[in-house]
């Protein structure tokens, strides 16, 4: 699989199909994977692919990284879940299909955090998204590398995140409030969740606007709540549940629960799942006169 990946990358760079290949490589000690930008054909040997390749590299396709875009057409090594983010970027007009070359990787799951890796991929160390993955074979790619994976996701979504959502939904409002305030109070406003997200690509984030100051920037509970609510809201109907925000969070706020809850709302209210078809408009861009309004008096 890695041989095929390296050969493909080398060929693409040699015949100038792409200017850069964004992929994964080992760190110096070969304990973790890290993003790598390959611009010379001989460097294609550095590319790897294994269950430690958790990063969602689609963030490098956004306008947050003009340096990467300046290298020419981008070839990107992407798992099915990363391709879902690319699809959203295309649906929102952020990238053109012809500007990128997707090297789709078939995937049997990744680890939740790289620290958990002990040489073997076990279900316990996989994130919830992998247990319910329906894109293990890339659904949109220029080349697909790796053997076809046969995996059928369970009928009803399963995993820690879904269990927690059900648990929280069963709580009283004050219990829910306590639960979230406990988590949000730890937020240090580092904005790692925003930086790592390929769908948070605004040139000026609302939290950086200070005339007026919409979101209080100091890390106290009131501003933390406003930030986390607005971050989740701005991803409503867009988030693909790639889980990067939660992985990047240094204080372990369970952002996956919040995002997945809203994804479930979008699914139930608009019958929409993000990241499958670039031709379908995201739900907040369009409307249906028959949308439900049982909550509007």
């Amino acid at each position, binding site marked *: 699989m890695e041989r095929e990946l390296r050969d493909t990358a080398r060929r693409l760079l040699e015949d100038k199909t792409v200017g850069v290949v964004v992929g994964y490589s080992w760190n110096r000690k070969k304990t973790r994977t890290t993003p790598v930008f390959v611009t010379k054909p001989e460097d294609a040997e550095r590319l790897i692919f294994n269950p430690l390749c958790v990063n969602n590299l689609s963030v490098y396709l956004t306008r947050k990284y003009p340096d990467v875009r300046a290298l020419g057409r981008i070839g990107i090594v992407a798992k099915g879940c990363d391709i879902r983010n690319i699809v959203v970027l295309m649906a929102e007009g952020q990238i053109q299909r012809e500007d990128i070359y997707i090297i789709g990787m078939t995937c049997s799951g990744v680890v939740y955090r790289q620290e958990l890796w002990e040489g073997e991929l076990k279900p316990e160390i996989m994130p919830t998204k992998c247990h319910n993955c329906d894109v293990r074979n890339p659904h949109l790619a220029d080349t697909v590398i790796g053997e076809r994976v046969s995996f059928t996701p369970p009928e009803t979504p399963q995993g820690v995140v879904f269990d927690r959502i059900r648990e929280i939904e069963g709580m009283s409002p004050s219990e829910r409030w306590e639960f979230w305030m406990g988590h949000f109070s730890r937020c240090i406003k580092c904005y790692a969740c925003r930086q790592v997200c390929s769908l948070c690509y605004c040139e000026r984030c609302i939290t950086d606007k200070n005339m007026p100051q919409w979101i209080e920037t100091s890390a*106290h509970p*009131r501003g933390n709540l406003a930030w986390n609510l607005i971050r989740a809201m701005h991803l409503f109907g867009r988030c693909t549940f790639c889980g990067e925000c939660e992985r990047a969070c240094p204080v372990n706020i369970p952002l996956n629960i919040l995002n997945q809850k809203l994804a479930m709302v979008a699914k139930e*209210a*608009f019958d929409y799942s993000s990241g499958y078809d670039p031709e379908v408009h995201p*739900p*907040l861009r369009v409307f249906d006169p028959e949308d439900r309004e049982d909550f*509007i*008096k």
Partner: protein
Amino acid sequence: MSENWEPRIMAFVCNWCTYAGADLAGTSRMEYKPNVRIIRFPCTGRIDPLFIIKAFENGADGVLVSGCHPGDCHYTTGNYHARRRWIGFKNLMEFVGIDTGRLHFSWVSASEAGKWVDLINRITEEVKKLGPFLEYRRLK
């Protein structure tokens, strides 16, 4: 909570329907609870969820968002887009534990002065029962 505590309710309303409806209630000399503070917007589509968060941050005990009935929007589709946004926002607020009695959505047309009066009276009562929104104010 003192005996004569009165809730503060913020109403975000659209210029063309609900604001005119509230205006009609005034010119018709209808009486309703004075707890509501009205902020006028060009359209419900202009109402960012952040405004609602900001209202709670600044001490509102309840929030009402109101605009034209579907199909009546002055800008044709603003309220349809707003409705989609509210579906997400309302679920999000419920999920983090804000009592549904503090966040209300409504359609009130320019002629529905009576509906506006009933709505404000009802919401005021409901929020009064819930008491001041201390959870949010304690976040300071």
